[in-house]
Structures are given as structure tokens and as C-alpha cells.
């Protein structure tokens, strides 16, 4: 676990240091992505999960089988959910982190992955 920096709570979008790397992993069934990496502000390792919205009528022509959504493109907005207490956090805030948020680009799917 990298050292946690107890910064004051602040909702802002810090620049991501170029040395930080984020693992963007698609789940086996293709229905969610897991982003893992260090928070640019408080340095805690943050795991952020984004699921495919399965509400609404199913968009499929062929029956049967589990529907695999198309891979996500662009980037995933991620916010810090380090779980450490940060000072100055308003009590009504649902945040579980330092308040920082940033974007993580999604790598283009590897040829082996299912689409």
C-alpha cells in the first residue's frame, strides 16, 4: 500500500502525473470495467468499477446467450474512493475519498478479447 497523504477534502480535477499508470480491465463477461491506480492527490490505490447499464429493452436480434455490450471507448471519469478520512469533508457529502476526480483513457481492446 503506498503511503496515504491526508490532504484536505477538495473536489477538484488534478493533473494526473505521467508516471502514474492505471489498469483498465474488462470483466470476463464484458459487462464492467475495473480501473485500478493511484489517486493523483492522496496517493491511495483506488479501485473504480463501471458497469454497463442493462436497463431498457434488450438490444439484440439473436435470441439466447448472454449479451456482451460493445467495448467502451474514450475515457472513464474516475473519482477517489480511497476510504481514508479527509479533513474538511462536508458531512452531507457521500464521498469516500479525498474528492479528487480524473479521467483514465480506455485502452483499445486487445485482439484476443471478445467484443
Amino acid at each position, binding site marked *: 500500500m503506498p503511503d496515504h497523504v491526508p490532504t484536505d477534502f477538495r*473536489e*477538484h*480535477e488534478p493533473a494526473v502525473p505521467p508516471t502514474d499508470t492505471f489498469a483498465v480491465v474488462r*470483466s470476463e*463477461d464484458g*459487462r*464492467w470495467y475495473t480501473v485500478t491506480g493511484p489517486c493523483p492527490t492522496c496517493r491511495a490505490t483506488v479501485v473504480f*468499477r*463501471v*458497469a*454497463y*447499464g*442493462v*436497463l*431498457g*429493452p*434488450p438490444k439484440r436480434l439473436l435470441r439466447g446467450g*448472454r*449479451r456482451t455490450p460493445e467495448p467502451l471507448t474514450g475515457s472513464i*471519469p*474516475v*473519482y477517489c474512493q480511497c476510504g481514508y478520512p479527509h479533513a474538511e469533508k462536508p458531512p452531507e457529502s*457521500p464521498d469516500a475519498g479525498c474528492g479528487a*476526480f480524473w*479521467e483514465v483513457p480506455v485502452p483499445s481492446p486487445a485482439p484476443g478479447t471478445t467484443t
Partner: protein
Amino acid sequence: MTDLAKKRFAQLGQQLQLDQLTVVRRQAEGWRNGLTGLTGLVGVVFVLKGRESVAGMPAVWRWTTAALLVAAFGLLLIGALGAVRAAHGQLGQRTWLTGDRLFAAVLDEVERTQDALTAARRTSVVGLCAIVAAIGVSWVVPAEESAAGSKEPATAVPHVLVVTVDGPRCGELMAGDTRTLTLKVAGESGESGGRTPAASGWRSIPFDQVRSITPVRGC
């Protein structure tokens, strides 16, 4: 630069991830209530309007109506059960209740719920169409039949030939009690001849004047 909306929507997305199942369940409940109400409404219409018109139909159409109704009943039953299942499905059946599995189970359950709901909607709509078709048949077919000119409507009222001390009387048997027998006599069209035209209408015959009663196909 701080685009807080970006974070708010990311938070909304995280919230929605957890709420998807609640949302779809509520939706399913709405559909279940709607489908049940609609089915009841059409069923009531048929019960009120249908039976008497079925009685005079040719056998083919009567069977068609019956088949349509049976099919409609089956479809509506399946649809109603599907909607109920969509509204009250179980989460986390036969799976390890770890966070990861449950996360996948929620997504599965949402999809299954929506499939059940779609199937319920389709079967209900087909079932309703079958009921409406049955109603349509029951409305249209007897009209054709009577227009085809069959003089004798298939009524359930039996005709009887009553021989009294005054002579025979023929009519529809309307009522009978310990003292009198009530006939509905068609005056002019009576084939027995010699009936006065004033004899049309309801006619009570005291039992002590009755010699015999014979059921007949018509007068």
C-alpha cells in the same frame, strides 16, 4: 479547470449501478398492474357481451371462439405469471454471495427481469388480441347467420302443443305452476289454423282444462 458535473455524473452512474434492480422491479410492478387491469377489463367485456351471441353460432365458429378463448386464457396466464415473476424475482439464487458474484448476479437479474417482462408483455398482447378476436367472431358471425335467412332463431324456449277442452293450443312454454300453464302464443303465424288473430300473446290455461301436453319443434 474543474468540471464538477463530470464527477456528479460519475457518482450518479455508481448509484445507478446499485439501483438498476430496484428500477426494473418497480417498472415490472407497474406493468404487472397494468396488464392485470387490462386483462380484467377485456375479460369483463367478454363475459358481459359474449355468451348469448355464442349460443346461436354455427358449430365451426363456436369452436373457433372456444379455441381463441382457451388460447387467450393460456397466454394471459403465462403473461400474468411472467409479470409477477419479473416483479418478484429472487436475487442471488444459487450463487456465492460474494461482492463480485452478486454484482454479476444483479446485472443478470436485471436482464432476466427485463426478458420476463418482455415475454409477459408479448404474451399478454397476443392473448388480448385473441380475446378481441373471439369477441369479434361472436359479434359478427350470428349477424351473418340471421341475414342468411334462417327463419327459426335457435331459442332455448321449448314449444309445446297443449290439447285443452277447447281444442289444441300451441306456443312457447313460458311458465307453469300448480294451477295454470302459461304459453306464449304466436297468433297469426299459427299453423294449426282457425286460431283467432287476437290469440297472440301470453295465454294462461288452467290445468283442469288441459288434456295433454306434447313437446313440438315449432307451431
